[in-house]
């Protein structure tokens, strides 16, 4: 039986610890800044500095024609605004890197950090079950990661409203964006965290866990490249399909994590 009060107790401790260790947030904030600033540099700053509008780039225009149907009202935008909307919508995928980075940073330390600090044994001596422990550890890292991702998205949208051509923001405010930010972001983060926590429970070194978590950057980067080239278009239906697949994978990983988490081995073999 899962006791939410115990999950909440450990979750509060995780958040309080993170609040005291702000340096751990730096990699996440850094990635958030990069993923937010990069599209503005490409779509807004570069054309202004170079004097060459984006709409004059044949490759971009060609890629735009492949996906124009998924951006609402794009046909009513100017040529420059349409290309900007295309770029800003593609880079939204990159915001998924924020919670994934958070996952890599926090999950790698989750159980190993407890072990190194010698706080794992007293914690395991409480009535907390393995499922409760793993859920609290995942949630404890996911909540701050997602909070930063949400802040990043809000700043991103405010930046688009302030700096991009008129109508670009409207084109971004779609069901797909909502799915990306509220669905795919959290579930990708959750999955990366679960992998991190799982690996963290089996290895002695936080870097090993981080390296496994970092594997999640590869498919995200691939998704971004495929989107930019127009090879793959993330529509609402494909997004929902991906969400379902990732959710299923997370449940499976949680189950495997509980099975693989061996208190005895952690206590007696970790040095």
């Amino acid at each position, binding site marked *: 039986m899962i006791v939410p009060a115990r999950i909440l107790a450990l979750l*509060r401790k995780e958040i309080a610890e993170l609040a005291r260790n702000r340096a751990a947030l730096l990699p996440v904030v850094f990635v958030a800044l990069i993923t937010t600033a990069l599209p503005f540099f490409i779509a807004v700053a570069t054309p202004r500095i170079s004097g060459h509008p984006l709409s004059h780039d044949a490759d971009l225009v060609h890629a735009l024609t492949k996906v124009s149907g998924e951006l609402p009202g794009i046909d009513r935008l100017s040529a420059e605004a349409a290309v900007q909307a295309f770029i800003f919508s593609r880079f939204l995928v990159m915001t998924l890197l924020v919670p994934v980075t958070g996952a890599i940073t926090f999950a790698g330390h989750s159980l190993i950090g407890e072990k190194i600090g010698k706080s794992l044994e007293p914690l395991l*001596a*409480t009535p907390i079950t393995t499922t409760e422990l793993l859920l609290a550890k995942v949630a404890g890292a996911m909540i701050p990661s997602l909070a930063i991702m949400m802040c990043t998205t809000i700043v991103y949208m405010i930046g688009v409203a302030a700096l991009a051509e008129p109508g670009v923001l409207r084109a971004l405010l779609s069901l797909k964006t909502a799915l990306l930010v509220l669905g795919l972001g959290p579930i990708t983060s959750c999955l990366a965290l679960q992998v991190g926590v799982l690996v963290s429970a089996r290895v002695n070194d936080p870097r090993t866990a981080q390296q496994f978590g970092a594997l999640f950057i590869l498919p995200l980067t691939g998704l971004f490249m495929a989107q930019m080239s127009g090879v793959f278009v993330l529509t609402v239906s494909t997004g929902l399909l991906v969400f379902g697949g990732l959710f299923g994978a997370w449940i499976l990983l949680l189950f495997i994590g509980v099975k693989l988490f061996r208190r005895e081995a952690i206590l007696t073999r970790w040095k």
Partner: protein
Amino acid sequence: MIAARHLSRRFGDRTAVEDVTFDVKAGEIFGLLGPNGAGKTTTLRMIAGLIAPTSGDASVAGVPLTSRTIDRVRQHVGFLTEAPGLWERLSVRMNLLTYARLHQVTDPAAAVTSALERFGLADRADSMAVELSKGMKQRVALARTLLHNPPVVLLDEPTSGLDPHSARIVRDMVLGLRQQGHAIIISTHNLDEAERVADRVGVLRRRFLAVATPGELRHRLFGTRVRITLTEDAAPFAGVAAAAGATDIKVAGRDMLTFAIEDVDAGTPAVVRALVLAGASILSVRNDDRPLEEVYLALVEDDSPGELAS
């Protein structure tokens, strides 16, 4: 309160604990003695529900220790691990509050406030754990162990590395727990400490070499010895003592007779009477107890008196 029957634990080919049987009653302190790697921590972890025995049975506070009940067993146990294991970046209060919540104490905040006062930590409640001395950390860890008022308390090297003052505070707290009716197992290398606090001790070296009170162990290994201090030269009175039933008589210093005697309660007055009649002026009469350290070393170095286990 704690009943362990033939507990064994193997890790691969290595047997850490073998056929360990003991009971601890409510209001009793049981000292677990043994060299490094003797299986003390493994035994405590089995009783705490952290690792399962390979064979044997145990029950804690009436709950049998099985894979199904192991979470329930942990509700009844307070386990002070060898290292305090505090969350260093959190305050003392937050450390305790988290554990009170994990144990689902009815009013966590009140329980923490009470524990802070009980363990003299109230003025350090908002200090970060990392700022505390080792002795203070151990007090916090002890407070954490007792937050949910467990009937069974397991203490793994509770005074290890503490200065004498801090160690004494911790020891006094342990004695206080006995008075409150907790069943306590204390694992320690500190034989003086075991002697001071434990009602019974078990000398462990993978298996129990002996389980008894410190006094019983002494008696079994060395017999009972008495020391009589005179105001004058003791050597001339050795023969008098021997005639009165004393054996293995030794003159210590100039004015002291030590000897073994079969029945200390009946035999000692007879020896004293004989000495007085022979004209000796007696300053003091007391048991000449060997330190528990000698008992321990005799058991561990020999590692053969398995028949002593009771």
